[in-house]
């Protein structure tokens, strides 16, 4: 497909000096992460990951601490060398690039945001944000202009000559975002960008980012260990466990149809009200008449429940052409709500 922007195929990363040996053994015997550690003194970071991200979407990678999320994204701009596998970014092959091609890719095509901001304390915000342009040799005036623009997009224009330690955590992360956006890259890599912030600020930044990405047409790889956040932000979600991608799907698919116990455990406490749609839970009409209570195919569970407030007769689901597509009884609505 032509609109795939990031693609990884059969990607493996094993940390340690005997990585190649360990890799062979894993392929031959299917060793687990613990066995690799004990036998080869190597750490299995990413195990056979294959995924693709479409242009313009936000793709979330979710998993517990140590499941290999950071390792996986760092392959996209090759901050980490893969042990084996292919990486394609913006129709370029990344895993075979030489050093200068790689630097160009990092400076022009990919912006990155870090969990602990990683702003340089000895540089002003302007110099932080303009760093990518600076290392490419862009003239100071132009750099400042671009920095100012990026900072203004984050409502921080007035702070350009100040230093990171003069800002609050939320503001610092907005600078981190401005830095990633300054060179106007097509792709954003965000490694738990909001995890270190308190919940209120986190919510604000999530909204601000969603708003921004809605009209900027950037492709985003977004890492989080919080499924709520993944559901809010992601068009697709990949769930990782012990270096392996266990399931990829839309938020609704993940929540309504978890593939194994690990995913199910995550999904347990998630509210389905804004996730499950009429189409997913409706039954066939089986010749019954349409009722006056009608919803569209993509109506969310919350809206359907509203209809049961007055009486408990079934709700009819309408397709876009105006014909009845199915019905939902109060029983199936409540079952869907319970999960």
């Amino acid at each position: 497909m032509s609109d795939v922007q990031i693609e990884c195929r059969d990607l493996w990363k094993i940390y340690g000096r005997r990585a190649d040996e360990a890799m062979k053994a894993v392929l031959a015997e299917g060793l687990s992460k613990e066995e690799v550690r004990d036998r080869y003194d190597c750490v299995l970071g990413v195990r056979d990951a294959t995924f693709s991200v479409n242009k313009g979407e936000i793709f979330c990678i979710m998993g517990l601490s140590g499941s290999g999320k950071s390792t996986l994204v760092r392959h996209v701009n090759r901050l980490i060398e893969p042990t084996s596998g292919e990486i394609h970014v913006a129709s370029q092959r990344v895993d075979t690039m030489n050093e200068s091609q790689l630097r160009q890719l990092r400076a022009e095509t990919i912006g990155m945001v870090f969990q602990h901001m990683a702003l340089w304390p000895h540089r002003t915000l302007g110099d932080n944000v303009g760093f990518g342009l600076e290392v490419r040799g862009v003239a100071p005036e132009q750099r400042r202009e671009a920095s100012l623009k990026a900072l203004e997009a984050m409502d921080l224009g007035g702070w350009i000559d100040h230093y990171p330690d003069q800002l609050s955590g939320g503001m610092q992360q907005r600078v981190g975002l401005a830095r990633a956006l300054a060179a106007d890259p097509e792709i954003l890599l965000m490694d738990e960008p909001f995890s270190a912030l308190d919940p209120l600020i986190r919510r604000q930044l999530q909204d601000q980012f969603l708003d921004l990405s809605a009209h900027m047409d950037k492709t985003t790889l977004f890492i989080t260990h919080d499924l709520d956040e993944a559901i809010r932000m992601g068009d697709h979600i990949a769930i990782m466990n012990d270096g392996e991608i266990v399931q990829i799907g839309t938020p609704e698919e993940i929540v309504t149809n978890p593939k194994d116990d690990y995913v199910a455990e995550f999904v347990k406490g998630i509210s389905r009200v804004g996730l499950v749609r009429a189409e997913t839970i409706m039954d066939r009409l089986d010749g019954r008449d349409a009722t006056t209570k009608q919803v569209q195919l993509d109506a969310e569970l919350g809206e359907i429940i509203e209809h049961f407030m007055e009486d408990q007769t079934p709700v009819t689901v309408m397709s876009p052409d105006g014909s009845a597509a199915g019905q939902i009884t109060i029983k199936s609505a409540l079952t869907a709500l319970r999960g």
Partner: protein
Amino acid sequence: MELWNIFDTEWVPVGAWVESLLQWVVANFRFIFQAIKVPFDIVLTGLEDGLTQAPDLLILALIVLVAWQAGGRRLGLISLACMTAIGLMGAWEESMTTLSIVLTCVVFCSLIGIPLGVIAAKNDRFWMILQPLLDLMQTIPSFVYLVPIVMLFSIGNVSGVIVTFIYALPPVVRLTNLGIRQVRADMVEAARAFGASNRQTLYKVELPLAMPTIMAGVNQTIMMALSMVVVSSMISVTGLGQMVLRGIGRLDMGLATVGGLGIVFLAIVIDRTSQSFGISARDRGHKKWYETGPVGAVRGLMKKG
């Protein structure tokens, strides 16, 4: 019985070996060591000529201004008091000689030590080899290598600088290595992620962030250089150290005291000033150095005018 006292005989003549090795090196390679002296000689002579031939009060003003710039008005006043005391005691000339030896040593220690430290921070194997060498340089009593140094480099101020250099080099290497290694990994990773080359990462991120630690190393190097002043006067190095040595030799308590006090006052000035250089802009409230002190005042006046 002979067997009970076998150690009466010298079985392994280490002394003789070293002696002949040294003789051989001196006979065949002395020109190399004489060549090594040249850059030290140039810098030292330049500094010494400048410091001793310029009018005393001009140098005094210069030292006070530098101290004021680096450490604020208080340090300026302290330096003024210390240097005036040295001058009034009649040790000005000697203190200028000592100062030029210490400064030359610092120049070369920084020029060689900081790059060594950076390489050591990047290359674990190099650091493994370097570490015992540095330990050796610091732990061998400096008296031990005075003799070979004299044989290879002859006596005088330049040889004194070289002895001092060997003794004072380790801290700046160690602390540069430490400072670079201590830079937070994500700061370096961020630089790489935005397309910086290794060189750019070093100059724009690692060195600036390591600078306070590196300057602490330079400061230690200076202090060690000062502590060598008396020892190195044994190989005819002039300056304050020689006043002390002569005083001891002639049991002239007055002369030794003047020299000793001179060293202490000079040490206070150099130590405080070099420490102040190490304080980063962040701790000064993000003021650039040229926005404070006498330079800042002059700039302020110029802007108004």
